[in-house]
């Protein structure tokens, strides 16, 4: 999938996406390697995930979890709701949400990294979770219908997008009126100089 786009930084968007995909392909395929962020079950505990949420989630999915927050701490997700997980990775949050919404609800997970999509689909099949679908796509151009989603969750993904305005506009497009955002992300407390914003390795590490 090619999606060339200009931005205010000194790199092509495709180059940044390739670097992010390379990084998260390793998180998918070699989750025990050790990264500049925590991963897996230890990270889930740092972020306040409850043991019960992780029950029935395949270990292959938990091992590649790399979030920065806890979307489920922000409000309840109700049975029957339709949830979108942006940057669904190996599918852990999507499958937690799938249990919360039950058989009348549904989850769409979106990710741009093929290795993560493969792992998420494999894990959902292993756990016999049928109300979740993983789609390839970008947050700035969501492959999701207008006004169709009750809750958007995302975890550690928005910070990786140079065009956050487009991503937020897409979230507003697909949410139903009164729909909720429940997002884990990062906050940078010190101003990042323009020279640093143009360095791809700082976006990924």
């Amino acid at each position, binding site marked *: 999938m090619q999606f060339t786009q200009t931005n205010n930084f000194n790199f092509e968007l495709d180059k940044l996406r390739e670097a992010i995909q390379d990084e998260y392909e390793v998180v998918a395929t070699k989750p025990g390697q050790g990264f500049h962020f*925590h991963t897996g079950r230890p990270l889930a505990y740092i972020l306040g995930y409850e043991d019960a949420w992780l029950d029935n989630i395949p270990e292959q999915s938990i091992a590649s979890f790399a979030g*920065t927050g806890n979307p489920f*701490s922000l409000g309840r997700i109700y049975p029957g709701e339709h949830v979108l997980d942006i940057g669904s990775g190996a599918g852990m949050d999507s499958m937690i949400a799938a249990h919360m919404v039950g058989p009348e609800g549904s989850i769409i997970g979106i990710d741009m990294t093929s290795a993560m999509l493969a792992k998420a689909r494999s894990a959902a099949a292993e756990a016999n979770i049928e109300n979740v679908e993983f789609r390839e796509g970008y947050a700035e151009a969501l492959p999701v219908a207008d006004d169709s989603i009750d809750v958007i969750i995302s975890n550690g993904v928005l910070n990786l997008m140079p065009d956050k305005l487009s991503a937020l506009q897409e979230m507003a497009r697909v949410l139903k009126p009164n729909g909720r*955002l429940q997002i*884990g992300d990062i*906050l940078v*407390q010190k101003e990042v100089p323009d020279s640093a914003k143009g360095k791809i390795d700082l976006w990924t*590490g």
Partner: protein
Amino acid sequence: MVVVEVGFVDFEITWRADVFSGAPQESSAASFGTLGINFRARKARSEAEWYDEMNKFNCAIPQ
């Protein structure tokens, strides 16, 4: 502010914490004071609700 501009209301950061310290590899995040956060917001029910939210950001100059 940008979250509100695109149609959301009730934006709130509910939690922040250093989620990078102790990671296996050193992160460039530390030098920028990077924290993990949780935030929530809600898509406005109507244009009227959204306009009300936008008006909260208007800075009226006292006469």
